[in-house]
């Protein structure tokens, strides 16, 4: 067993339901239905336990968290427990009165997603006609209520050419922070990888635009940039290390080290319905599985960066290398790295259509891409 520190952040995916159908969604292909969702009283208990365990920040996410009429109760419970409360929303359901109620309940900060800066493209990507206009209105309501806004812009091949305008729009909407995040290929995004993968030129362009905007807008707009895994040299330090800083609780109470961990075969996840959160964090086999560095194989095991990036993402290692203990192929030291780079270029050259996110029965889920084979066996 590896000693655990207290977690800092909790991602609460309080529902998988969403009026948008974004193909880049990282929710699982098999979405949790409304009947299985934890109720407000159960969440209130969990949020108090989380604060007692050391959690400082709560991210209320989904799906679309504002679909739950009891969201205000959750916000109030979190704030009552001393948590910093961040709402991650598409914003299409946020009218003025709702925003004021959330603010009164103690909401600290809102992350509002934009699918694009162009209205037609944004509505097409979100699969929701009129959605973009509703987001612009939501931003106005948030600003009027005095709630600080981060704009979340998930970027991919079909919106990257307008990234300058997205930066300008974030500024127009009164955001103090912009997150430009390359798509993370989990869940629906993984199934849509060919339709979303940017070209190397787009990636270079995005990097230059962000660097320039950071310099030009210093002190006015903070820009966070999430680099594209498939074009990386070193992998991201996923979740700051497995079971090290953050945890995710799904709509039904299933508790995981990250929101994609359910894709790792052989791990069983405990639910807050059955076990105390503290036990799950400190003792559950799923949280222990990749804690620390003892689980690592080569080249991670002897790598000087192993405490920096923790071998990258376990879910991506599972999906791409077929082994959750492997080095994340996003790392240049992975034997699959060259194949990953080649695959990114192949995907970027396709004109694959979107498979929109939706609730489907288990036997009708879209297919995810296969794991990679090393270039030499291909």
């Amino acid at each position: 067993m590896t000693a655990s520190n207290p977690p800092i952040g909790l991602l609460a995916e309080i529902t998988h339901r969403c009026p948008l159908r974004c193909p880049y969604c990282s929710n699982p292909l098999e979405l949790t239905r409304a009947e299985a969702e934890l109720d407000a009283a159960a969440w209130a208990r969990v949020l108090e336990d989380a604060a007692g365990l050391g959690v400082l920040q709560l991210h209320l996410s989904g799906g679309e968290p504002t679909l739950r009429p009891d969201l205000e109760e959750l916000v109030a419970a979190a704030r009552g427990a001393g948590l910093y409360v961040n709402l991650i929303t598409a914003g299409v359901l946020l009218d003025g009165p709702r925003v004021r109620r959330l603010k009164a309940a103690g909401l600290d900060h809102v992350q509002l997603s934009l699918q694009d800066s162009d209205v037609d493209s944004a509505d097409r990507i979100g699969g929701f006609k009129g959605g973009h206009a509703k987001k612009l209105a939501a931003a106005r309501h948030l600003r009027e209520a005095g709630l600080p806004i981060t704009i979340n812009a998930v970027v991919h091949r079909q919106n990257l050419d307008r990234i300058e305008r997205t930066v300008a729009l974030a500024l127009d909407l009164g955001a103090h922070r912009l997150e430009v995040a390359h798509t993370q290929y989990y869940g629906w995004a993984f199934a849509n990888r060919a339709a979303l993968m940017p070209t190397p030129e787009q990636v270079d362009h995005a990097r230059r635009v962000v660097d320039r905007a950071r310099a030009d807008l210093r002190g006015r707009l903070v820009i966070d940039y999430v680099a594209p895994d498939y074009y990386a040299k070193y992998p991201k330090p996923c979740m700051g290390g497995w079971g090290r800083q953050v945890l995710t609780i799904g709509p039904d109470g299933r508790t995981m080290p990250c929101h994609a961990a359910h894709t790792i075969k052989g791990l069983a996840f405990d639910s807050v319905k059955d076990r105390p959160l503290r036990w799950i964090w400190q003792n559950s086999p799923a949280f222990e599985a990749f804690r620390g560095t003892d689980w690592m194989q080569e080249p991670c095991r002897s790598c000087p960066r192993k405490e920096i990036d923790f071998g990258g993402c376990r879910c991506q290692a599972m999906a791409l290398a077929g082994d959750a203990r492997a080095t994340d192929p996003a790392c240049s030291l992975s034997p699959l790295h060259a194949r990953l780079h080649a695959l990114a270029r192949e995907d970027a050259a396709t004109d694959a259509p979107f498979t929109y996110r939706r609730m489907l029965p288990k036997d009708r889920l879209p297919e995810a891409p296969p794991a990679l084979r090393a270039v030499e066996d291909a």
Partner: protein
Amino acid sequence: MVALTAESRPVLQPFCRLRDDPVRGRVVLLAPERVLFPCGTSQAVLARLDGRPLGEVAADLADRYAAPADVILADALTMLQDLADQGFLAEAGADQGFPKEATP
């Protein structure tokens, strides 16, 4: 807010919260997507950001901790500039962190 000086009057943005963390036994600064654990000196500075010029904050701390005010000011400016660049500070009286005209 671009470059802080002894004349700047920074305050924490309303969306940032300084609070005790009983689990870790220390003070934390909570901000959007960031959790910071300020050291003792930083806490003393942050607790005094009430709209006074930083020069006065440094003088107050110099008095309290019997340390040279210029050293305290230099340390405070380094720490606060980093927070300002992350958008966590506003100039007292301004509403969005943009500096108004320089106060004489």
